[in-house]
């Protein structure tokens, strides 16, 4: 299956306001997605929220590509109730750059960003309370990174808190 170009009001709106920061707009299996630079991500969310009525942040997540120069893909899914349309925005996260928190636009981003931080170690600048959410606070390591093994764990934490040598 191949991607097909995505035309319409939304990609035009993005290109008009963000110009060259919009790297790619395509459809894959009928699902629209836009690839942006990381710096343009928050402006794009703001724009879609204010101008195109994308009022519901469905999800934020990340994908780890350890061999790539910019290791992580950050993925935002937004939905517009009035348009009944769902759009996916993606950006690569350069090593020296922190993504901005989307909490000022969507309150629901709070826990979603905390989970991305917890699992991938991506820090969001301006987040009100960027702490681990699913893993214990003192845990070291980020489980959803590709170099974190499936049975790997923080043995020190396990020893100190559970009083056993290993959880396996």
């Amino acid at each position, binding site marked *: *299956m191949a*991607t097909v170009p995505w035309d319409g009001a939304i990609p035009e709106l993005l290109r008009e306001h963000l110009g060259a920061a919009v790297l790619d707009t395509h459809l*894959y*299996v009928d*699902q629209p997605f836009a690839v942006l630079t990381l710096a343009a991500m928050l402006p794009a969310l703001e724009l879609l929220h204010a101008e195109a009525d994308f*009022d*519901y*942040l*469905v*999800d934020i*997540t990340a*994908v*780890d590509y350890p061999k790539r120069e910019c290791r992580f893909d950050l*993925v935002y*899914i937004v939905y517009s*109730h009035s348009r*009944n349309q*769902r759009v*996916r925005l993606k950006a690569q996260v350069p090593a020296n750059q922190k993504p901005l928190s989307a909490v000022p636009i*969507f*309150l*629901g981003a*709070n*826990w*979603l960003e905390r989970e991305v931080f917890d*699992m991938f170690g991506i820090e969001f600048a301006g987040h009100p309370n960027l702490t*681990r*959410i*699913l*893993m*214990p606070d003192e845990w070291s390591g980020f*489980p*959803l990174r590709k170099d*974190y093994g*499936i049975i790997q764990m923080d043995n020190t934490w396990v020893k100190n808190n559970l009083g056993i040598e290993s959880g396996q």
Partner: protein
Amino acid sequence: MTTSPDANELVLNMGPQHPSTHGVLRIVLKLDGERVKSTECIIGYLHRGVEKIAENRTYVQFAPYVDRMDYLAAVSNGLGYCLAVEKLMNSVAPPRAQAVRVILTELNRIASHLLWLGTHALDIGAITPLFYTLREREEVLKIFENYCGARLTTHAFRIGGLQYELYEGFEQQVNAFCDQFPAKVDEYEELLGGNRIWRERLRGVGVLDAATCKRYGVTGPMLRAAGVPWDLRKAQPYSGYEQYEFEVPTRSSGDTLDRYFVRLDEMRQSVRIVRQAVANIPTGPIMAKIAKVIKPPVGEAYVSIEAPKGELGYFIVSDGSTHPYRLRVRPPSFVNLQALDHMAKGALVADVVAIIGTIDIVLGEVDR
């Protein structure tokens, strides 16, 4: 129990072992007398790393794991997963499989709402309804058991369709359930909704208006109780939902009482859908023609369904191999629970229990 620098503020730890938290949810309540100033949810006690496991299993092997997230709506979880993988493979389940999927998923919605109703009432102090709701839920679980051998973690569907043909007497059993069930819903409504104590206990508690719902990303019955008639089965139909006639029940005030009414109405609508579906199950194959080894082409897709608790989504990245490169679950309970702080602020301590109940969380899904 400790006191903090503000002499009037009391910090109270609720859970993780607490009967009203429906699992292992810990909430740190900051109180001023009987009033809640703020709440902080501490979650993760049931974290099993489902998304990590997915990367280390084949697509087929991972399917049973999704049942263990929202274990009260295992069928919905399975449907969402199968649809997501099918989307990546560009295949569609045959009509017969789609109809059976709809029947089982709607029955599961009823079962999930029934357990919610019973435990929610129990939390608030009405003990009796739980026995009635469990009695009706049992009938649904019997159908699941007859169909696939399991009652709770059903693993009823397969990627591409169904594993099993229907058993003899399936239609009769489902119809028998549909015949007797609506009267039972009326009975619950009489027992609870007609009860002044119940109404006064829930009215105006945990109000969440439509705008706030959207800002938090809250979906499902909570959003509909705030007056937004948004249901993925209508907005973006999947698995043939566009063929069935049903309404999306809504209420307007977005409080705990309205959420109770919305869920009751949803059970009635589910019966309506099941009746239509079971009357016209198409004949034909139950599996689409898909490869024995499932290897979706390189690409990514997000597919979501209307689970009993809200929008349940799967975002899968395929690298063309037999294992998902990345599988993300967008759990409705996790996102909806985030609104707890907003709902509980200014409420009485005793109402916190009602507010947790009304969100309808399953910690297995919150923590994954």
